[in-house]
């Protein structure tokens, strides 16, 4: 460990309040001055089923979920009406306890609800023996009993927080304040009683562990938010005032946040019949001059293939989101994967002119969403933000001042009526919307309702007036003009270190390249490797198209070997690197993970150590190592 951290896992059934409890727990630690990071694991069902959330806290910035955890709060299942009754998901009464023990670190703490598990059940787990072997510290507590005494069964989560606070030395007033912010009346009173009772009772125990919450102090006021919130807030600040969508996990969260906030800032949010319509609506709004977005996850994005192509051909600016989950088809709805890269790059017919970003964390989600709008509206093409189920829901603390930015109420390349009057027109009065000689390949546009700007926009190839044209010379000119935008976009984006982030020593022997949501985990692994005496640098790529060829080539040239880390089975990003650079097959190996869980730092550490030792094995059963073709 290169940092002093504590990872608390709360486990139970969906419906036990795991999400809200963990959010409050993370917020309490953030307010106590710590850096926090959460990791969510949940099944694709509404109630019941095993779910957990981890909250990692440290005195230093946290980049990933870390390896394993050290405090388990195992709630029962809310549907187990009594210990004799079968739980909702069958008779697996021990699930929140049994399912989670494998990843508990040595010296860890287990708090479980003895009110819902009898001694025989626990004996089946051989818990005492395992605790002795791993130096675990067991604190069976009648959480349900405490909850019942002051309120209802479901307040077991509050009781568990009270016990945790006492065991780890967290001031319970943080939780009291947070509860006061989200509840009132009898519910608040009951919860406060449960909390203080649990806290007081625990204080009287004999503690056998030596874990406690680290001391920390963050600078300035912090906000706790996830990638979805980063995207939504970036869009709002960049002037997005229209969103249309159809619900699909995990994209739905951005859609919900935007639906809640857009009307407050004078925008429009629309839930519509399907994703084809959703993206088509975004184009309709953009065509009339609004900054517009839509989005979906893999399956829904497949439907958007048509309007995406229309946006490219008709040069209609739009921002689309692609929240990846494990595929193909409906795959695993609540599990992350990075396997839609080729889908996003190549879907829809014809040669594509789209820009693609893949942010690393909540801050980059904000920044790159703004960037996506900026590029889309300046260059009149679709820009896509790829993220995934991991980034969608993981919370981390970001300084509030990060969001203290200027808004951008610029209509992009839409001309004012005065400017239109000066621009080229056909003798008939039609505006030369797609005139070829425009700077940077951009043809400034008019929007319906503007005087002097009438023209036709089409999904067919057109001439400069926007009229359908199959003349070979015109076709080549128009394609060349649209493609010429990319060199200018690449120039605009060059040098942005949040898009291509180098991490680690300048003269490293080994390199790790990754993209999107795995960047934080890789950077943490690289820090650990260097602390252990290795010489490793990492490159985190958030700019997918235009492909940052010079930066990636320079990185690969500078090291002996490179491991490309990504969450898919076919090495899609590695394939893209080789396609774009036309070389390096002998230098690039792949570390892949596609079991539904994101990478843990130790897997990357081990893979690089193996590589350095000339060993081509995967670090564990959960990952796959594909050696470079030169091996």
């Amino acid at each position, binding site marked *: 460990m290169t940092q002093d951290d504590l990872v608390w896992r709360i486990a139970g059934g969906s419906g036990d309040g795991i999400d809200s409890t963990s959010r409050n727990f993370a917020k309490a630690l953030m307010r106590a001055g710590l850096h926090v990071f959460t990791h969510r694991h949940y099944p694709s069902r509404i109630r019941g089923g095993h779910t957990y959330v981890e909250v990692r806290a440290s005195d230093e910035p946290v980049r990933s979920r870390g390896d394993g955890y050290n405090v388990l709060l195992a709630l029962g299942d809310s549907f187990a009406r009594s210990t004799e009754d079968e739980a909702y998901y069958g008779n697996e009464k021990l699930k929140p306890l049994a399912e989670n023990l494998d990843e508990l670190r040595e010296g860890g703490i287990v708090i479980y609800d003895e009110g819902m598990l009898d001694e025989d059940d626990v004996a089946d787990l051989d818990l005492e023996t395992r605790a002795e072997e791993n130096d675990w510290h067991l604190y069976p507590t009648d959480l349900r009993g405490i909850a019942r005494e002051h309120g209802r069964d479901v307040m077991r989560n509050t009781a568990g927080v009270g016990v945790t606070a006492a065991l780890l030395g967290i001031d319970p007033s943080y939780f009291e304040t947070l509860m006061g912010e989200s509840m009132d009346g009898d519910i608040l009173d009951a919860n406060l009683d449960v909390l203080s009772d649990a806290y007081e009772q625990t204080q009287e125990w004999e503690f056998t562990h030596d874990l406690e919450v680290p001391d920390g102090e963050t600078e300035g006021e912090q906000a706790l938010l996830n990638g979805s919130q980063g995207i939504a807030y970036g869009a709002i*600040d960049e002037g997005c005032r229209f969103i249309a969508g159809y619900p699909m996990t995990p994209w739905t969260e951005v859609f919900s946040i935007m639906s809640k906030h857009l009307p407050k800032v004078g925008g429009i949010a629309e839930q519509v019949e399907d994703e084809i319509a959703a993206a088509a609506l975004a184009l*309709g709004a953009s065509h009339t001059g609004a900054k517009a977005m839509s989005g979906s996850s893999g399956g829904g994005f497949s439907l958007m293939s048509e309007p995406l192509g229309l946006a490219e051909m008709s040069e209609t600016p739009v921002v689309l989101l692609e929240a990846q989950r494990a595929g193909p088809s409906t795959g695993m709805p609540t599990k992350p994967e990075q396997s839609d890269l080729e889908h996003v790059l190549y879907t829809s017919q014809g040669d594509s002119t789209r820009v693609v970003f893949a942010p690393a964390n909540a801050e980059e989600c904000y920044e790159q969403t703004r960037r996506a709008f900026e590029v889309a509206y300046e260059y009149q093409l679709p820009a896509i933000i790829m993220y995934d189920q991991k980034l969608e829901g993981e919370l981390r603390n970001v300084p509030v001042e990060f969001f203290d930015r200027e808004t951008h109420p610029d209509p992009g390349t839409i001309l004012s009526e005065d400017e239109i009057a000066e621009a080229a027109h056909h*003798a008939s009065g039609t505006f030369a919307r797609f005139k070829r000689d425009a700077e940077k390949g951009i043809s400034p546009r008019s929007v319906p309702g503007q005087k002097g700007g009438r023209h036709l926009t089409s999904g067919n190839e057109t001439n400069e007036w926007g009229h359908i044209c199959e003349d070979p010379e015109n076709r080549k000119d128009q394609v060349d003009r649209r493609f010429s935008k990319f060199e200018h976009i690449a120039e605009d984006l060059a040098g942005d270190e949040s898009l291509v982030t180098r991490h680690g020593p300048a003269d490293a022997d080994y390199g790790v390249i990754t993209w999107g949501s795995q960047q934080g985990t890789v950077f943490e692994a690289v820090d650990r490797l260097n602390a252990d005496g290795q010489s490793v640098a990492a490159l985190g790529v958030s700019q997918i198209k235009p492909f940052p060829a010079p930066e990636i080539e320079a990185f690969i040239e500078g090291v002996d070997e490179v491991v490309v880390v990504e969450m898919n089975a076919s090495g899609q990003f590695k394939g893209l690197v080789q396609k774009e650079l036309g070389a390096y097959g002998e230098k690039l190996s792949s570390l892949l993970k596609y079991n539904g869980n994101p990478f843990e730092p130790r897997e990357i550490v081990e893979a690089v150590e193996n590589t350095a030792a000339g060993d081509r094995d995967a670090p564990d059963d959960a990952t796959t190592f594909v050696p470079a073709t030169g091996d």
Partner: protein
Amino acid sequence: MSTFSAIDQDREIDREEFTPGVEPQPTWCPGCGDFAVLKALKGAMADIGRSPEEVLTVTGIGCSSKLNSYFGSYGFHTIHGRPLPVARAAKLANPDLEVVAAGGDGDGYGIGANHFLHSARENHDMTYIVFNNEIFGLTKGQTSPTSPMGHTSKTQPSGNAKSPIRPLSLALTAGATYVARTAATNPRQAQEIVAEAIEHDGFAHIDFLTQCPTWNKDAKSYVPYTDVQDSDEYDFDVSDHGEANAMMRTVEDKLYEGEILTGRFYVEDGRPSYGQKKREQGEMPAEPLAQRYFEDGEWERSIDFVKKHT
């Protein structure tokens, strides 16, 4: 100069202003019913005094959807079956525009049928003209959703075993507040109905019968027709949902028996359009979204929302 000064101009409009002058000749076949729609639309715009620059026509794909290549307003020629969602958003984003969506029977009743149902259900304030010639024309004569049962084509060589779709009844059931049928062979009525539909506050659907002289020679050229409003034989209340529905069933049955009935079949005034509802609920601004980019006024910032996460 304001941002959208082309809107609400108070002047006489000449129908010829809608001839774009860029695309010289329509590529429609001689005798095609599509010419009648173009003519009716130009006339209607002049009748109600809309200027070319305050009108947006959104079309799908097919012969019909070339409409806006020959119509000199703002136009967006989109993709097969998708004009409605594009048009809906354009109207929401700029409520001052006059938005007309158009496409063919394959476009609108086949691939785009789902959008048709939902656009009607939501009662968007716009006009939707479907050029119904009972055939896929531009792809050279395949069976369409409105082709009669038994119709043979290269893709249905043994004859169409499906009964044709009932567009008027569908529009009504889904929630359209203006439903009419007119025919290319009745230009006076067509122009009146198109003008009425454009002025209607809500979703106005026109099933426009257009003969295809090339690929659907067997089909009637929609003469003789009867205008139900001019006929003593048909007496029903266009504002009564039940009577309108019964009348539409009759009309849709008779079409395939060779009797062409046209006219207004349902007109509901007073139901607020979707945009109006959204504005009443405070979910949508009254002014065009783009207006604010030009006005460059006070902009809300996300930091106010972020503070809730501290």
